[in-house]
């Protein structure tokens, strides 16, 4: 009897362990009706938090700026970390239009580079979307006072960075209509992840 109980117990335990370790099955509650937890979020509450900007321009606020406006903001709030002309310092390099027509990696680049030093990854040669600049600067910059820039200041900085990277002209106005239309040089370089496991190194 004791032996039978032990065997049954062992089988039960192994069964439980196998169920618990199955990673592929969703471990959700299996309950179909709502629990009723949480409180409804009003449009105002959502708007107060929702600062993201998408590649199609959704989320961009009103406001505008040109590179000329941006130069002063940059000098005052960004240059200390990113260098006077975006050449980098204690923070990332931002400006660099080389190599023209291709990315700073791959076969074309390796041929181009044969006679010169490597160039850094920059907004001009690597960032695929101009809207990302607005989204990131508004939420996280400057590092000493994140989230402190106005919409106009942010548009102006984006315009300055795009001009320095030779993507838009110095007089081009950046706003919620024009920014999503800016085509970044590296845009076509990006491809989905094709790794799926298995023996091939990717």
């Amino acid at each position, binding site marked *: 009897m004791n032996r039978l109980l032990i065997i049954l117990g062992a089988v039960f335990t192994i069964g439980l362990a196998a169920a618990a370790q199955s990673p592929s099955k969703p471990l959700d509650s299996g309950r179909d009706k709502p629990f009723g937890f*949480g409180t409804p979020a009003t449009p105002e509450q959502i708007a107060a938090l929702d600062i993201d900007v*998408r590649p199609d321009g959704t989320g961009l606020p009103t406001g505008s700026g040109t590179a000329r406006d941006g130069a002063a903001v940059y000098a005052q709030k960004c240059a200390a970390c990113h260098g006077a002309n975006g050449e980098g310092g204690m923070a990332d390099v931002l400006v660099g239009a080389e190599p023209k027509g291709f990315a700073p990696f791959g076969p074309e680049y390796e041929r181009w580079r044969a006679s010169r030093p490597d160039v850094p990854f920059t907004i001009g040669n690597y960032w695929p979307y101009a809207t990302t600049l607005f989204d990131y600067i508004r939420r996280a910059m400057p590092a000493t006072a994140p989230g402190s820039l106005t919409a106009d200041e942010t548009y102006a900085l984006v315009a300055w960075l795009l001009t320095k990277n030779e993507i838009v002209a110095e007089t081009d106005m950046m706003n919620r209509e024009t920014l999503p239309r800016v085509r970044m040089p590296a845009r076509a370089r990006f*491809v989905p992840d094709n790794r799926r496991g298995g023996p091939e190194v990717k």
Partner: protein
Amino acid sequence: MATKNRQTHGVTRRTALTTLGAAAALTLTPDLVSAQDAAPVDTTKRWGRLPNTLGARSPAENPRRLPIPTSSRTPLQDLHGTITPSDLHYERHHGGVAVVDPRAYRLTVHGMVDRPLIFTLQDLKRFPATSRTCFLECAGNYNGQREELTPQEICGLTSQSEWTGVMLSTVFKEVGAQPRATWFLAEGQDAAVMTRSIPLKDAIGEAMLAYAQNGEALRPEQGYPVRLLLPGWEGNASVKWLRRIELSDQPFMTREETSKYTDPLADGTAREFSLVIDARSVITSPCYPQTIQKGFVELRGIAWSGRGVIRRVEISTDAGKTWKPATLQQPVLPKAVTCFRYAWEWDGRPTEIVSRAVDETGYTQPEMSAIQKVRGRRTRYHLNPVTGWTIAADGSVRFALQRVRA
């Protein structure tokens, strides 16, 4: 004191405890507190410290993270087993550690949902809970520039915990996630207001909103009070100090998923949303800066894969000419650290010891040369090359630099 203890046999338990407690309070405690760091005494001749409210490591043990301004690394060579003590879990922050008041904490879930909702911490804890042991690893967890490197310096941006929280699928049901929603944005409330776009279908089976780690509330540096947890994926996607989730039918293309954490490839394209951590292993003992002795040496290390379980770990003690299987410590869990061990007899001749992991998909941890052949010279993230240690004739151990030089 020992004599007094024996005399308590004849009295009631309460009297004995009271007597003991009083004696301890009056005479023992100050002595023992000050004695803790003193020269060794005969521990059988003197009472030790009495129980207290919070434990601490032996003063003789001093494992430490290795910090720089943006990250700190787990001392892999100082650990045993699979769980990283919470205070040694690696850190990678983009705006420092946010200090969030749990009473003021709110998570807003909105976008393509039928019922946009705001949850308090208490709300999230009311949902059915689940626990999951898995590793977390930074996408940029490789450093191999010189011979004098420890496992902590080479790949210490990986750690493992048992996480507890609510399945994201449970919360998505609660808000009525719409079928058109294919992505969601996870946003933190740190100074970077960190954001990542997550492909919903790939994540929803295992994603959690975690509020506990190794049996207690999350550490502040791990996203207290609530973080997203995506088992097997690059750590940056498991957004900490989570304040907002927005469901959408497209990715948001934030900075960390475009200009960072993408993989330039040799053919001139760049891979985006390369979220899964491929299989990897490292020998954590022996390692630099140890010196080994001739005779028996147990090789010990850890292996992990973001695609499931570790199927085997292969060891070479002749610089990669021949390979033999290591013993895997059970249980081997999916997307979790697996300890391996290998009994070796060192004959005193210089050599190189190497490990490589194979996961359940048949993927074999590649050599750096194979990675660079596909990804090119300028690839920066998701590097998981086979690594080893050279053993010199005098037994000194150094990082095998030639193996990772393309």
